């Protein structure tokens, strides 16, 4: 059983993940209606507390909240004073006094959502913290795979790119393993965390071997500025060795799908044509992101503090 906050995939059990994905299945149908709104969270307030810039994830949570009739407030503290943890907690306490029903937190430092959850009465949903976790991204990725493949159990998922700095990779590794998939990672050696194989993941430094027999190929975004020089010689070199194009995709299964959390550096992680066309499912991921976040808000936000029948647990 999971608690009242969604801080990471780490804390979820397989049955919890399945419940969220099943709920998202029904939420997706609402997005196909003419009136894309249900009254479920009417009179409830969802605060998007984004310390780190993000257009896509924030918009996705905002649309999700609005489709459930919640009042969504975007709060993006800026400036150097926000770097200090006391200021962060002060901000959180100030928000808490406004009685939100859920707070969605993104921060560039790992662990901030947890610290905020410790002082906040409202449920906290982690929308990405440093290189730690990005649970809703992993949930929407698992959902997209299940939608495309009909299952997750028994599939081979290869994650390619900057594993060591990636919260998306960290959440997805745990999620897909819990759902019974084989997970492989492929990257230049400095981008593979030292202990990654202890999680039950197979690490590869040769892309061809990692892709052999893969059902799902997930490319991660390369943060060019930060990494150039220290992790790989040049963007061109990275793209030649680890960038996915149709030729390299031949190593994977014939019906393999290609995923990317976005935004794509076109021609770096993915070739131009793969970014736009099948078998990439990038726009499905975006669409499913709204349904997953509706499911998460439904399951976590606006429940009474401690329910009579379950003690506040999901």
């Amino acid at each position, binding site marked *: 059983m999971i608690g009242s906050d969604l801080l990471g995939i780490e804390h979820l059990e397989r049955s919890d993940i399945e419940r969220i994905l099943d709920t998202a299945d*029904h939420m997706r149908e609402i997005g196909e209606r003419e*009136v894309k*709104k*249900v*009254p479920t969270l009417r009179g409830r307030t969802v605060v998007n507390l984004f310390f780190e810039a993000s257009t896509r994830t924030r918009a996705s949570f905002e649309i999700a909240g609005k489709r459930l009739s919640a009042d969504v407030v975007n709060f993006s503290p800026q400036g150097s004073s926000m770097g200090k943890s006391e200021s962060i907690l002060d901000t959180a306490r100030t928000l808490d006094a406004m009685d939100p029903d859920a707070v969605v937190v993104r921060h560039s430092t790992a662990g901030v959502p947890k610290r905020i959850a410790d002082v906040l009465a409202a449920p906290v949903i982690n929308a990405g913290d440093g290189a730690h976790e990005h649970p809703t991204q992993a949930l929407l990725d698992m959902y997209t795979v299940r939608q495309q493949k009909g299952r997750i159990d028994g599939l081979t998922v290869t994650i390619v790119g900057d594993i060591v700095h990636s919260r998306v990779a960290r959440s997805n590794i745990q999620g897909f393993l819990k759902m019974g998939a084989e997970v492989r990672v492929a990257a230049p050696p400095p981008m593979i965390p030292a202990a990654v194989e202890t999680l039950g993941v197979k690490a590869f430094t040769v892309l061809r071997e990692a892709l052999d027999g893969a059902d799902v190929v997930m490319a991660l975004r390369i943060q060019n500025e930060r990494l150039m020089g220290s992790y790989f010689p040049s963007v061109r070199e990275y793209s030649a060795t680890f960038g996915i194009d149709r030729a390299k995709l031949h190593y994977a299964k014939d019906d393999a799908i290609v995923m990317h959390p976005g935004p794509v550096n076109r021609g770096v992680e993915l070739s131009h044509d793969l970014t736009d066309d099948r078998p990439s499912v990038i726009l499905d991921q975006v669409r499913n992101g709204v349904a997953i976040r509706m499911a998460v808000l439904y399951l976590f936000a606006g*429940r009474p503090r401690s*329910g009579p029948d379950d*003690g506040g647990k999901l």
Partner: protein
Amino acid sequence: MAHADATGSGEAPRAGEAARQVLNDTGIRRALMRIAHEIVERNEEPEALYLVAIPNGGVPLARMLAANLHEVADVGVAVGVLDTTLYRDDLNHRGERPPLRHTEMPSAVDDRVVVLVDDVVKTGRTIRAAMDALMDFGRPRAVQVVGLVDRGHRELPIKLDYVGKNVPTHPKESVRLRGSGGGLDAPLEVVLLGGGTAGEAR
């Protein structure tokens, strides 16, 4: 279906609990045939009919009603499925979120005579939720309601247009439609489970 029954978990019958049959498969079929005749009698334009089932119990009943309407009036009536969970009025008072169910509305409701189909009607709150949900899909010309079993105990001013059978019950008892395979496959029956006696035993 009453809210307490809707989750399927709140009053789950324990193994070996006595279930009294209040309607058998023949009785259900007979009631649905009579209701089909009543629907045709009341609606001069059967082409405008649109059966909308409230899951889970309403779904097999709506399909049977559609077949009956085809037989009685020679019309093909559309069948939709509308989950009311996200429209419930008790969501903010429960710690646990009820699971969602499938919604599939194959045609527009505008200017149609929508006939909501539910298996067991008690408080009327599910019908209220279904009407709100329906209005989000458009503007039906009229809304009518079929309840296979009417238990009474209404908490809202809602009246059924077509009733299979009135079954007087204790509010704590549970009435459910169930099928032979544990799901909702034929043959069907409606049973009354002694929630009241279980409550007294505690």
